[in-house]
């Protein structure tokens, strides 16, 4: 079907009052789920599945997708305000988002996150609409060796996340990689570092570590100061609650970078939004004219990852709808939903269900507008959270964190783990070890190990497979280039000094 007629048809479906309502319900629920740490979109969608059988499939699909991309909007809120990542893809947002909040620019950070989400979310839908089928074919060119190189590229970003000491960043990353190895070996199914504990067989959930190291570590560190009154400076006046024109100008490239990288990485079934957000943050910092501002409250450091994790949703729907191949937890549940509704997701799905596909696409345009309208007015309201005095706010963060972890697994063992990681986060802070490399290692470790071992199975143990495949070699070359960025920056600084 012609794209324009398809889209017209889609809007006819999406603008039906019932479907508009479902779209709104979906994005609202998504925002709430995103704001709450712990409970994520896959579990929420799975819980709502029984309800969707009373709805027509178009409305149900529109609502469930709304939860999916809505959660990406909400995820940044607690990252920025409380240093508690609401979703795994919002961990990177903590770095500069929370730093902005500490400078009294929480409103601007929240506003930029919403705007970046809107821009990139919309770009993601445009991509889904225009290039889905051909792009899905290109994505199939990626297999284990390419995923390994992509993740190696992500891991190379560690040199950009380092603070004063490169050595400390690398050590933190190694600890993250080690934690990712805990659990069951993905191939031989033998257990590693489980110390006979059954709870550790499934590995340590990323959420547990992120909440422990970021949120609890922050709470413990702040408790030392015994500050009376407000924990963080509260922005005053409407002007300070929203991003300035200068902020928007600074983010021009971040919007493009986040949108495009997020979408492209989303299309790859084996990557995921957390990797997308880390890579676009790294790229943003690598090309920035003021890389020294990153981690201290650079507005681009919020815009790039928040954009990337939103356009990733549009990308992730590409292999799902054009090939019936799910790439992430959420798309796997959406696939299950389609099957239970009686559809046959696969290569012919779009051509045989144009109403559903175009209705979904149109609803995503509408949903993104709804989310912007919903989220921007909430900015001043959310920013008021910072007015809360420290002795109320920190116990609150503690409570939210522990409830969040418990809601994911329902296991008290995980609660004790989160406390342990909180202590680790505190010690790391005291000794000036950066937390982000640890998370990076943890996110990428499992996938990298799997991809490398799969590659070696393919090549019968020959490492040459990583350099003889063109895409793979190009990604590895990019990873090496990234490793040289700090060196280049240093050389440049010397050159400038010499000139003076």
């Amino acid at each position: 079907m012609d794209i324009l007629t398809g889209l017209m048809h889609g809007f006819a479906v999406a603008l039906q009052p019932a479907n508009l309502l479902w779209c709104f319900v979906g994005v609202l629920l998504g925002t709430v789920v995103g704001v709450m740490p712990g409970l994520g979109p896959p579990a929420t969608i799975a819980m709502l599945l029984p309800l969707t059988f009373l709805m027509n499939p178009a409305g149900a699909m529109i609502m469930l997708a709304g939860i999916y991309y809505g959660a990406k909007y909400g995820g940044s809120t607690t990252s920025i305000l409380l240093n508690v990542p609401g979703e795994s893809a919002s961990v990177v947002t903590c770095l500069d988002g929370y730093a902005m909040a500490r400078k009294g620019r929480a409103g601007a950070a929240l506003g930029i996150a919403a705007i970046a989400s809107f821009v990139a979310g919309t770009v993601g839908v445009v991509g889904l609409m225009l290039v889905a089928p051909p792009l899905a074919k290109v994505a199939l060119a990626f297999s284990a060796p390419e995923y390994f190189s992509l993740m190696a590229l992500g891991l190379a970003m560690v040199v950009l996340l380092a603070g004063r000491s490169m050595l400390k960043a690398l050590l933190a990353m190694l600890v993250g990689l080690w934690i990712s190895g805990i659990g069951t070996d993905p191939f031989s199914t033998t257990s590693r570092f489980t110390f006979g504990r059954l709870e550790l067989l499934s590995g340590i959930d990323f959420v547990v570590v992120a909440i422990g190291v970021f949120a609890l570590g922050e709470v413990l560190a702040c408790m030392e100061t015994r500050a009376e009154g407000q924990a963080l400076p509260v922005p005053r006046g409407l002007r300070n609650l929203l991003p300035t024109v200068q902020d928007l100008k600074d983010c021009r490239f971040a919007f493009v970078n986040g949108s495009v990288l997020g979408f492209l990485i989303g299309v790859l079934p084996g990557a995921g939004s957390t990797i997308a957000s880390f890579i676009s943050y790294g790229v943003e910092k690598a090309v920035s004219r003021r890389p020294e501002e990153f981690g201290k409250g650079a507005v681009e450091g919020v815009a790039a990852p928040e954009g990337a994790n939103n356009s990733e949703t549009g990308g992730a729907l590409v292999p799902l709808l054009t090939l019936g191949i799910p790439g992430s937890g959420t798309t796997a549940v959406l696939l299950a939903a389609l099957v239970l509704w009686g559809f046959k997701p696969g290569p012919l799905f779009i051509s045989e269900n144009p109403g559903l596909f175009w209705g979904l696409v149109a609803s995503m345009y509408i949903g993104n507008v709804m989310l912007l309208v919903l989220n921007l007015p909430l900015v001043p309201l959310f920013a008021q959270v910072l007015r809360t005095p420290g002795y109320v706010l920190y116990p609150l963060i503690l409570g939210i964190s522990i409830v969040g972890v418990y809601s994911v697994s329902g296991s008290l063992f995980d609660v004790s783990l989160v406390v342990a990681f909180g202590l680790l986060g505190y010690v790391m802070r005291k000794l000036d070890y950066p937390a982000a490399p640890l998370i990076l290692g943890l996110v990428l470790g499992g996938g990298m190990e799997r991809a490398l071992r799969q590659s070696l199975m393919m090549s019968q143990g020959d490492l040459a497979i990583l350099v003889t495949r063109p895409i793979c070699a190009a990604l590895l070359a990019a990873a090496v280039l990234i490793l040289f960025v700090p060196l280049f920056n240093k050389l440049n600084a010397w050159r400038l000094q010499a000139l003076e």
Partner: protein
Amino acid sequence: MKLRIVSAAAALLAALGGLHSPAQGQGFKPTRAVEAVVHTGPGGGSDVLARAVALMMEKEKLLPVRMQVVNKPGGNGAVAAAYLAEKKGDQNTIGFFTGVWLTGPLTSSEAKVTLRDLTPIARLVLEPAVIAVKSDAPYKSLQDFVAAAKKSPGQLKQSGGSVTSRDNIVRQLLQKHTGAQWAYISFPGGGERIAALLGGHVNMMVIEPAEAGEHIRAGNMRVLAQVSEKRLPGFPNVPTLKEAGFDIPAVPQVRGVVAPPAIPKENVAYWDDVFQKLTKTASWQKFLADNQFEDGYQNAADLAKFYDEFTGRMRGILQEAGIKLVR
């Protein structure tokens, strides 16, 4: 499309009209929402089956309470099995098992709970499979593939799940039967396996018939043989393994229901009755047909016998494959 939805809804309503007598257990009835434990995350095979069963229970009014799916992923089923064992005597919990609950404890020393320690309720489904290649592959039959594998040992590749999964067991059986050798690349997600085949990174895979169906219709895949005792209705022209000249057992993926240890006899009788009724409903038959599953229903007593037979068979196959067994 609207028409399709309407006709689907009509079919569903017709199906619902048939049966709606609530299950009558003697004495026992669940008093609060039933927890259905599965070993996959949301969207995995067991998770989808459990959610489908929960829906059918509601539609056919077989349970007086709701059924809630609880995901306990990890350790190839070990975490979910141990969780059920911990719920000893709990009357409102059941679990959905698969073959890995039987094979897992054979290879992992941490997986201390075997199906033997839980209370058998019912076997529900036997999932057949088909052996598929990409449509532009040179192999027109399984014989072609095996001949090519013999010509260059270890060069051809198959994508599949973990080493104890049915995919690998079928490969081991075929290799042993023919003397051919090809590599096995394990992908944890079902989607990645298909992507690897469609992208030309592997040469062959063992895939569920319903999943393969769409890719065949779109002209992306070709089926060489079916891992099934008799030809599936969806593949009338494709030979079974035996018909193709490979006299090996057609290992099915088995799925069923268990309860925690030490629950009263009358509870077992109640669940036995509920699942027996479920498998007789029209919605269940439609579900089986849609997914091209075989009706694998066995009651609680027969299921216990099945465990031993199946575990014994798998032990032999895994040993042959050179996989280290711990019990």
